[in-house]
């Protein structure tokens, strides 16, 4: 008994070695608890899903909160007519295949098929589909993106999680600080271009909200994704109601009946806020809706597409159904998976759709996303060319905000609300910072 006590005492007293930590300590397993809807977000389109996926599929670069672009998988170089992207030699998929220009081009061609954020980020590139097609068949070391018009924010937009290079058709295989080891685990990659992560691996558990909260409190989990959040952090997952030209009268029925603040309070939950303008408040968009006209009445039926596995979208879709019923319109709800929603909407299905997109933290890049959702490529190019010509960043941002106000009534995109990253951290975790998108960069995490 005494000997055992002594051992326990030694274990408590002696490891000054284990607790000392002015620099990061390597080792251990990072434990994450995620809610089911975070697990369901396979493509990482929500902030929580993007944080989780970034462990195994890093974006091309980190856009730091201060605006600096930190290359991760590739470096960028401005050329006479665009930007040259050179993947770093040490960037490799878990299979061992290096990330070459061809792999990057193929990954982006697939991203364009499913993600409005990816299409918006590459919108200023001249003949982007043809460029990617050509590079994906060549054996070059760099990917040249020729610009159709000046676009100073291109590098920052390329850090968007939607452009994280993936090897196959599925969302799984990217170039990450960790290599996926089954669905729940990952192990540190020693040769990752930014250096190996400090833990040896991570493990993810999908838990109910209560169980996840308890796990964090009991320190069985160090990262909780899907619950909690910081209202002061940038909120950039913007949700819009997009419509077909023929269904614009329906939107005119919705808008006067819409109380965005109540919608957020009752159906979305924090950290989120109402978004009365095309740009979210975090990017200097309107934070107060203009007082509208009196609600009119209509008739007929309409089909609304929404994303099935996002609890907030389902609730908002049902709320819109009730609002339109009050106006005399029967709205049918059509749930879709995120990738099916993008495909079906672009194929002409549905009269209305709820679209949630993580906006880049730059007003011009965010407006490019709005214009992409509006679905008018020619008009979009005209707008972006004018904004891209303004070289000074603050002036470009101001011009974009002005233009967003003017466009608000004319594009078939009705802003609803904007959400931030839902998550909580064990306070003992060190060096977890947010990037410009408001996402945690978990790569750097360690604990004493």
């Amino acid at each position: 008994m005494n000997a055992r006590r002594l051992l326990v005492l030694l274990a408590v007293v002696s490891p000054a070695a284990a607790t000392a930590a002015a620099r990061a300590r390597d080792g251990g397993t990072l434990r994450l608890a995620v809610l089911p809807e975070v697990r369901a977000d396979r493509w990482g389109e929500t902030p929580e899903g993007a944080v989780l996926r970034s462990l195994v599929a890093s974006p091309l670069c980190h856009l730091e909160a201060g605006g600096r672009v930190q290359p991760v998988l590739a470096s960028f170089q401005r050329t006479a007519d665009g930007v040259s992207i050179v993947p770093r030699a040490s960037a490799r998929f878990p299979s061992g295949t290096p990330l070459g220009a061809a792999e990057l081009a193929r990954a982006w061609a697939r991203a364009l098929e499913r993600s409005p954020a990816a299409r918006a980020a590459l919108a200023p590139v001249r003949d982007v589909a043809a460029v990617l097609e050509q590079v994906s068949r060549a054996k070059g070391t760099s990917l040249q993106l020729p610009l159709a018009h000046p676009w100073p924010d291109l590098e920052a937009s390329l850090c968007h999680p939607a452009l994280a290079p993936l090897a196959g058709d599925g969302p799984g295989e990217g170039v990450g600080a960790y290599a996926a080891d089954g669905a729940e685990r990952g192990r540190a990659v020693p040769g990752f271009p930014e250096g190996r992560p400090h833990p040896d691996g991570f493990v993810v558990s999908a838990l109910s909200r209560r169980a996840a909260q308890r796990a964090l409190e009991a320190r069985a989990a160090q990262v909780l994704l899907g619950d909690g959040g910081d209202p002061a952090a940038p909120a950039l997952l913007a949700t819009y109601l997009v419509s077909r030209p023929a269904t614009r009268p329906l939107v005119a029925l919705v808008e006067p009946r819409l109380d965005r603040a109540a919608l957020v309070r009752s159906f979305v939950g924090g950290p989120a806020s109402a978004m009365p303008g095309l740009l979210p408040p975090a990017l200097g968009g309107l934070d107060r809706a203009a007082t509208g006209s009196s609600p009119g009445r209509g008739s007929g039926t309409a089909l609304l597409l929404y994303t099935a596995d996002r609890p907030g979208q389902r609730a908002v879709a049902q709320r819109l159904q009730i609002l339109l019923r009050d106006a005399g319109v029967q709205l049918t709800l059509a749930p879709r998976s995120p990738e099916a929603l993008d495909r079906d909407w672009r194929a002409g299905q549905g009269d209305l759709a709820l679209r949630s997109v993580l906006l880049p933290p730059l007003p011009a890049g965010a407006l490019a996303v709005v214009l992409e959702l509006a679905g008018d490529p020619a008009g979009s190019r005209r707008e972006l060319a004018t904004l891209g010509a303004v070289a000074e960043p603050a002036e470009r941002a101001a011009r974009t905000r002005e233009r967003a106000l003017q466009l608000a009534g004319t594009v078939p995109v009705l802003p609803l609300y904007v959400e931030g990253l839902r998550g909580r951290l064990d306070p003992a975790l060190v060096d977890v910072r947010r990037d410009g998108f408001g996402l945690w960069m978990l790569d750097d995490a360690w604990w004493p």
Partner: protein
Amino acid sequence: MSPGPALVAALLLAAPGARAVAPGGEQVEVGSKALELLVARLSDRILAARPEGPAAIAVQSASPALANAAAAVLASRLSAGGLPSFVLSGEEEPASRAQAQGGATLVQVVVRLDADLTAAGELRTVRRNFWSGRTPLNDGPALALAASVPPDAGARVLWAAGQGPVGLVLHPTPLVHFGERTAAVAAGDIDGDGHGEVAVLLESEVQLIDESGRVLARFPLAGLPLAPIPVRESFGTICIREGHIEVVPASLAAGLTLRFTGSALTSTGVPPRPTLGCAGDALPARFVPGAARIQPEGLPASRPVWGGDVRRGHKALLFPDGTATWLPAGESEARQVPDAGAGGALVDWADEMFLAASSDAANPSEDRLRVVGERSSLGDLPVPGRILQICRAVMNGRVVLVLGVWTPDGGSDLRIVWRRP
């Protein structure tokens, strides 16, 4: 009789470094008439209100030494005046703790020293009126307390004793703020003009900075061959030697020797080796691949270090277990310094060698710079952020420390610390 003078004298002697400070060099009188006078005014006002005893006393001050002295003197004065009193321990929620410790009245004051020595606060009961229903009501006398007296030397000593170590001064503003992390910092007179320069290795470039924080030249590191096994933390070594900057970033395959032309930095093509310390007897070393650690030659390979320094025969090594080993010149017996972090440097002030080191706290919002000498200690200086690099420099003719401090925004500061003469 007033218990004041003896008590204040005893507390003054107990205050860290109190005797070493004599601001302006004047003779410090042991004791503080000003503090006694201030406390006398407070206690007269408290006793006049005839509060119920016992009274719990909570004094707050930026200087713990001053707070302790004021609380102890006030308690003894009130007790002598017929009001049983005790000093409340701890800082959080004084009212409930006063109640828990048996107090009926709470005296809460904040003491500070600027032009005057002032005390301000309140007196109130902590007994709850049980009969007032669900709304908790505190009744009994409540009184605002305020007093102010001209300060004396003793009060200044007590105030300064809590304001960081005696003799160490942190320049209130950073010399430079960077948007990225510092990996290594070195100082020296690169151009021989008699003014010191600071060379900083950052994640993406090397910068040469003058005494006023102006950037003299930059050398970008983008595009250089990367280390085969990359390291995640910003790490490396840098020295100013014979008009050159010798820099070895741990993230790159090889180091660079940079020549300063007066307006630009150009590579000479000679790759330097990493060393611990920059003096002539610096220890050759090599990086541990994939980790922010360096292995000095001649040490067992299982004991890589965070860093170290060599100066005038003294050697210091900073180990990842949070201890520093200091081998003084000409001695075989090494000295162990506990709670030392990743930043450390040897610095000669007057004719004494000191080891300056950061703390080993994991993620402090406020780090401590601790400076211990061969014969004396300069104590701890709080520094906002996380100190990762320390180097000795001569600036404006004065020996100073330049700190590389990581800030919570993902950037870093250079901060200057000097010793009060």
